[in-house]
């Protein structure tokens, strides 16, 4: 069983469209994250939820809206996609949210905006 699973793995879409990425973890963790990895491989944190509560919201455009229906799921919806949104989006989870423990990453969702 995959510990952290993301769907879809690949998205190719036109500018201006809206897209969603889903993430689920079966590790029993209470904290989930979205990271963005750009073409230079920089990994930047976007959001974090702890038990469905938003605890980290970095400087991310309002077009990005995370949703956590329960502590095992964290989705990311992106409105009005722009070329600069092209990247690999990684979901991750951890046990606890205060400087503890390792992050478990999903396989990533590669978004290409044309």
């Amino acid at each position: 069983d995959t510990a952290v699973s993301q769907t879809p793995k690949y998205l190719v879409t036109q500018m201006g469209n809206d897209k969603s990425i889903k993430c689920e973890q079966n590790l029993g963790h209470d904290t989930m994250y979205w990271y963005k990895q750009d073409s230079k491989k920089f990994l930047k944190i976007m959001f974090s939820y702890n038990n469905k509560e938003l605890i980290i919201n970095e400087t991310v455009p309002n077009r990005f809206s995370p949703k956590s229906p329960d502590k095992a799921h964290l989705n990311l919806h992106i409105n009005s996609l722009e070329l600069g949104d092209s990247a690999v989006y990684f979901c991750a989870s951890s046990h606890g949210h205060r400087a503890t423990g390792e992050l478990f990453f999903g396989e990533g969702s590669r978004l290409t905006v044309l």
Partner: protein
Amino acid sequence: GQQVMQIPQYQHVQEGEDFTTYCNSSTTLSNIQWYKQRPGGHPVFLIQLVKSGEVKKQKRLTFQFGEAKKNSSLHITATQTTDVGTYFCAGYGYGGATNKLIFGTGTLLAVQP
């Protein structure tokens, strides 16, 4: 804000040579973690260091946390082709940044057989 830089950005070695990547944070870290990302893959946790001056080994990999808890290094002895990938350090800060794991800029290691 907190920044974590790594050098070198890229290193190409012959199989059997040693490799070291250095990680420097602009602020003191409560702990440091290291991850490896294979080409086309996702980051995978390698190790966590917590104490000032701590050194840990995993087979051919040696990890070190600086005395001031602002820098760290990863040394690989006698590289193998399976070591290929990008190595990231990542640290938690103090105060308001304790819940944010900030990743370094990464070092891409290429190993020629």
